[in-house]
């Protein structure tokens, strides 16, 4: 059946896009999740002790949690960092997103599906034409400080941080920023906040990035030639590449 009204069409477009974005880039998920407008805050239970910072600010992992007022934790993922590399791992779904910064500032992007031992690659040239996935700073820092104002020093779970305020994607926000790690440890926006809840050390980080040593690589450009590939079929069925049918 064909929808006829412009509003209906716009809504369908947005619904389709939003569904996808929620399932992919965490920065984009953050935009969506943090886009609620109320101002009250409450830390979720278990986030009150002191954080143990990593020894090496260039090689570590972190557990990141999204907490929504009145609902508690709504989402969690793992953050992994190496020099020029950053990854977001979603253990419950057994897949991860990985970014790699090239000389000259280009960023390459992969999706890794541990369950199937597969890696799907984006062409950097194509990726360069997309804005958000190329935002290396945002992926690595969890937020871009551009447009925010430094409000002075503070503490977040015993860690020295600087407090930044301003608008993130059009909404008032506060960012608790670790200069030592060069990343946000806490972001408040509306009724939702992002929290770094614990760190992992370099060994675990290396393990994460080496996990795909025997995985099979596939380009997005190759999906069209591999419809009969059981992995592609499974991914389609699971809504990784496609859903709705």
């Amino acid at each position, binding site marked *: 059946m064909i929808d006829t009204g412009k509003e209906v069409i716009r809504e369908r477009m947005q619904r389709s896009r939003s569904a996808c974005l929620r399932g992919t880039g965490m920065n984009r998920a953050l935009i969506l999740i943090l886009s609620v407008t109320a101002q009250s805050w409450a830390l979720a239970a278990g986030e009150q002790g002191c954080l143990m910072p990593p020894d090496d600010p260039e090689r570590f992992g972190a557990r990141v949690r999204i907490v929504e007022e009145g609902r508690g934790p709504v989402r969690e993922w793992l953050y992994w960092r190496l020099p020029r590399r950053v990854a977001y791992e979603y253990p419950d779904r057994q897949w991860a997103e990985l970014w790699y910064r090239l000389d000259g500032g280009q960023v390459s992007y992969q999706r890794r599906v541990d369950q199937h031992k597969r890696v799907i*690659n984006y*062409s950097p040239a194509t990726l360069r*034409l997309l804005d958000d996935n190329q935002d290396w700073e945002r992926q690595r820092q969890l937020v871009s400080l551009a447009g925010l104002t430094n409000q002075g020093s503070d503490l977040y779970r015993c860690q020295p941080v600087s407090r930044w305020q301003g608008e993130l994607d059009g909404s008032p926000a506060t960012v608790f920023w670790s200069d030592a790690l060069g990343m946000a440890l806490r972001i408040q926006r509306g009724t939702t906040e992002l929290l770094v809840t614990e760190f992992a050390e370099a060994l675990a980080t290396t393990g994460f*990035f080496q996990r795909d040593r025997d995985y099979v690589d596939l*380009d997005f450009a190759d*999906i*069209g030639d591999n419809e009969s*590939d059981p992995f592609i079929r499974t991914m389609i069925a699971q809504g990784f590449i496609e859903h709705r049918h």
Partner: protein
Amino acid sequence: MLKKVLALALGSALTSLNSTATLALEPGATPQQWLAAGEEALREAINQRANKRLAKNVILFIGDGMGVSTVTAARILEGQLRGQTGEENELAFEMLPYTALSKVYNTNQQTPDSAGTMTAMMTGVKTKAGIIGVDDNTVRGDCASSLGQQLDTFLEQSERRGWSTGVVTTARITHATPAATYAKSPERNWEDISDIPVSEQGKGCMDIAEQLVYFNAGDGLEVAMGGGRRHFLPKDAAFNTADAVSAVEGDRTDGRDLTAEWQDLYPQGAYVIDQAGFDAIDPDHTERVLGLFNESHMNYENDRGLDLLGEPSLSEMTAKAIDLLDNNRNGFFLMVESGRIDHGHHAGSANYALNDTIEFAQAVRVAMESTDPRDTLIIVTADHSHVFTIAGYPTRGNPILGTVVGNDSSGASTGINELAADGFPYTTVGYTNGLGYAEGTPGDAIYNFLPNPGRFLMAGVDTTDPGYHQEALVPLSSETHSGEDVAIYAGGPWAHLLQSTQEQSFIYQVMKHATHKARP
């Protein structure tokens, strides 16, 4: 006034080739002009003489996924990019004098894939989808079943006759179409050792990259240029090149660096990975070339400027390959593939597919200009088509990537968008299936989003933008091949054998006859 428009400014070499008339009439031509143009074309057809000489050289061009609708739309787009109305334009290969239709099915599939179709063209034997250089007794993915089923390719035969041979592609050099010229594999995806399941390793099947390096018919390939460096390098960051776009560029899990092994095998050869290396090759004094210009596929023509260290275009690679191969006085066989026409369509992007088709036509033009039609057989075809359509009743000269602006009851352009029954405009070109509508998502970026089947287009959207993806009816993870026939265009010795509707495997017979028989 009758205007004889040479669609392309071809040199004397091309016009002396038994090519057809390139008459084209611009809008406003009178009936007398149409008749005069037709008579001239008829004279040329009558005077066309079959060339029954022995072919010294053969060049096979494959536009991967370049169905007839793609040729038509690219023809119009190329003309419009030059300021013409477009419909009257001709792509370079449309000036070749002979045309036939090719039946493209695989032995086990109504709608084919590139592995089975290219095997048919290179060996004369149709086979299954997904398998390369082996007959259809092979079970896909089963190494043991493929042993003893290997087929002999025209490229191998050329090498054994003392010819030089070359393979040029914008896809990975280990991808299905180029691989079918030199490799045998029960699975098109076994591009390197890491792609072969452990259960199939050690049974006598070699990965495709290794087969390329150790290809031993005659004295081995003289030219291999394309993408796919990852399949030749170890999965170890220490082997990354300066052109790497991944943290670990190589995929090989056996620790072997096949680029180094190739250089050991051919110390006089040139291994290059970027535009500068390519430009530095002196084809008159280079024995052979291995050019791996990208970790994976080379860039779409639209995006070539974004490559880290630069990549040559398909036409540049074609020119360089011919200049090197024609050092052999015995002759040469060259296969040139535009691999990314197919990928543009799979992504539902007419803009990307058509711009790669235009560059493909430019590569054919280079070949037509730099070879002698008396001794060089040129065949241009596709392995299969796509579900790509040209529809509606747009007025003459309407932008081929635009929305349909029709004519009024008097036959003149209305100047405004035609509206479908849902009240919204629609594009001339579109797809039956695939990911469907999108804006601002160039090329393969579309795979990051869920399908948008159906109608979304509203007035004011720039449908000619590279980020625009045409609407599709059936939602699929990517747009699919189609099962319709594709065209074959040919010129040179024995090209006249290519007429009527033929099995795709007939192309092999023509190449073999032209180079082996040479009898009237």
